């Protein structure tokens, strides 16, 4: 059984982009998303697919989406397994509508951030903040 620790991406200005994005959601949505992340962190990584996570394909190949539906809106938190074993880093947040992600460049942003994290994991990410 492998459980993973969740990390948030920190941008070049030192801003936790996941925390910032969550703080801009209404309280109920934020509670829903943090609840799902809390459950994932305590779930065997092999069982994540049973908790509405999706291994992305195509131009987002290599990324994993945490999928949460709330009040008709499909929220997506994109991340990847790493940089170290037993870690999952959240890289970008958005929504999905009619099979399109919003923002449209969320995949590219996630890939760029992943590269940044890989180069400097100690500064470009922090443990997910559940506040």
């Amino acid at each position: 059984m492998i459980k993973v620790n969740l990390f948030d991406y920190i941008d070049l200005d030192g801003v936790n982009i996941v925390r910032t994005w969550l703080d801009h959601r209404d309280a109920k949505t934020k509670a829903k998303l943090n609840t799902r992340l809390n459950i994932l962190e305590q779930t065997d990584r092999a069982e994540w697919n049973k908790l509405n996570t999706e291994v992305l394909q195509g131009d987002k190949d290599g990324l994993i989406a945490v999928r949460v539906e709330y009040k008709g809106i499909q929220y997506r938190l994109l991340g990847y397994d790493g940089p170290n074993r037993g870690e999952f880093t959240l890289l970008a947040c958005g929504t999905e509508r009619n099979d399109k992600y919003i923002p449209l460049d969320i995949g590219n942003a996630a890939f760029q951030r992943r590269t940044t994290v890989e180069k400097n994991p100690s500064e470009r990410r922090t443990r997910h903040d559940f506040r």
Partner: protein
Amino acid sequence: MILDKERQIQDSLISKEYRDALAIEHVNTTLAIQIRKMRENRQWSQSDLADRLGKHQETISQWENADYGRHSITTLKALAAIFDVALLVKFIPFSELVKDMVNLSNNRLSPPSFSEEQNYAHAFKSFCTTLNSTEGALTTANNPGLLPHDIPGFVILASTANVKAHENDRTIERELVHA
């Protein structure tokens, strides 16, 4: 790290709207997971469970979806009876909610059925007798474990029971598996 998370969640409860939502979401999500895990531990398909309840498979699929959130007490009572576990619905302080949120072990999400508990108790008694021990502790878990060779009639299943028995001055800990 668990303490950090516990503190973070505790801090987040300052907002009434947020803490109300968090409590609801935690219940909704863990109920969906519990239903799926208890079904899987019994090696039932969603259709198997649906047949036992006189429901459609799609209904079970909905109940097991972490985004569903509309489980009724009536449904939960029926599920408890089918899984042969107890259902406890009660009001608790938020401090207890936070402790529950940071301690979602497999064993807590998929409790043993009554008969499993009985078998664990039987295995425990046999184990203690073998050791000539008069006291010990029994806790259940869902990790496959090794079978003590000296207790006949037990085979390895997915569910096991952890036992601690005291023999003279030493404590012996084993995982038992019921037949």
